[in-house]
């Protein structure tokens, strides 16, 4: 239960990081918070030849909240994002989801962008990036490019980036007007990986009728997916919309897997239950925001 030997570098600039990643080639891996990577190394599920620790790279530890959205730097710890009031005002899903990421000691060290780059289907922030229609910025020796979430997640623990690259930030667009959000998980113990989780956004029209409903799930499917549930409740008054119908629709759209923690059927059941609950809460919030 110790990591296999590796070489280590802790560059002081992004250029240096890319340089050493290029020089070390295929076997090099970026280390940020390490809260997913180090367990993989200790369990010998991964044995990179080189770890490139980006913790000394300046300028990556800031949360920038503007009216359009929230940009989260690669070294922003979950605990920082959880307590960033400006970010929570622009995109409330950030604090709501981060509160469900593991335990405080893990959140003190783990980074939000790192968990997105890790692309674990049971990670919260991958689904939040999808649900908010976000993107990541990726620095390569050729320059910086922006990759939309749909083009980023390829499979479990797999992203579309190859070769020397550092994900420098994630961008979460602001919550639309007349909208509310909610996030909820079912886990065996608080802070454990979710058996199933749901994040939702409900948008109302000016007459407080349901205009749009979007949902994304945790530990369901191989990559994050966003499901449009609007059809089940479109045009219904927010206070008494048939959220159970939206839950039923969601159950037909997801394709969960069976694993040691839960059967696919149980996960599908939870998708329905969590959808109904979170939508009611998100709609109430949207109504509250219009008063």
């Amino acid at each position, binding site marked *: 239960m110790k990591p296999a030997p590796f070489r280590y570098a802790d560059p002081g600039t992004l250029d240096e990081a890319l340089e050493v990643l290029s020089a070390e080639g295929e076997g090099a891996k970026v280390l940020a918070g390490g809260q997913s990577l180090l367990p993989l190394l200790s369990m010998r599920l991964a044995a990179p030849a080189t770890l490139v620790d980006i913790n000394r790279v300046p300028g990556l530890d800031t949360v920038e909240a503007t009216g359009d959205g929230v940009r989260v730097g690669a070294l922003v710890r979950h605990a920082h994002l959880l307590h960033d009031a400006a970010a929570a005002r622009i995109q409330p899903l950030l604090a709501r989801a981060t509160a469900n990421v593991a*335990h405080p000691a893990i959140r003190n060290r783990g980074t939000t962008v790192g968990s997105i780059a890790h692309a674990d289907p049971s990670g919260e922030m991958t689904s939040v990036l999808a649900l908010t229609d976000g993107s990541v910025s990726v620095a390569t020796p050729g320059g910086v490019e922006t990759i939309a979430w749909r083009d980023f997640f390829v499979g479990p623990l797999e992203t579309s980036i190859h070769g020397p690259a550092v994900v420098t930030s994630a961008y979460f667009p602001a919550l639309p007007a007349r909208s509310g959000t909610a996030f909820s998980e079912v886990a065996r113990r608080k802070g454990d990986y979710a058996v199933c989780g749901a994040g939702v956004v409900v948008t109302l029209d000016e007459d407080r009728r349901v205009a749009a409903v979007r949902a994304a799930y945790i530990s369901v499917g191989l990559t994050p997916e966003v499901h449009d549930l609007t059809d089940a409740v479109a045009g219904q008054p927010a206070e008494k919309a048939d959220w159970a119908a939206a839950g039923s629709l969601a159950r037909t759209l997801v394709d969960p897997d069976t694993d040691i923690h839960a059967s696919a059927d149980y996960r599908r059941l939870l998708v329905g239950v969590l959808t109904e609950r979170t939508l009611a809460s998100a709609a109430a919030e949207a109504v509250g925001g219009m008063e």
Partner: protein
Amino acid sequence: MSTDTERTVSITVNGVPREATVPVRRLLSDALRHDLGLTGTHVGCEHGVCGACTVLVDGDPVRSCLMLAVQVDGREVTTVEGLARDDDRGGQVLHPVQEAFRECHALQCGFCTPGFLTTIAAGLEKRDNSIELTEEEVDEMVGGNLCRCTGYANIKKAVRHANAAMRDAQ
């Protein structure tokens, strides 16, 4: 820039500057125990789940099995050995959290205890203890540490006990 397989790190551990030359793959937990001889930090699962190895890095609780020793070069680490304070008679006084654990019988086998003590000490020291502790706060404070003996009731009692002691001392 070059890569290393071994490095010399300088860490302030419990207020004392220490130095060790370690392979870069050395976990902080192992560096504390094997290289620095501080065996109060216990190693349970070694993948971040059990919380037994929790130490404070610059005051914040972190899993020492999920950090490399080279990552704390130049930083301050507090282990369970650093919680007690020297008294004026050449002895030591327990931290209020340690005192509360003894008082409330919050440990049985003791394996998980160092991780609980560091986590709770940091949690209570960071808050204004004149404000009432909520049940959720207590759960959040101890929820990341596994204890297979006590059933948590006495640990939670000890958190509230320590909170009261620290409030009275404020």
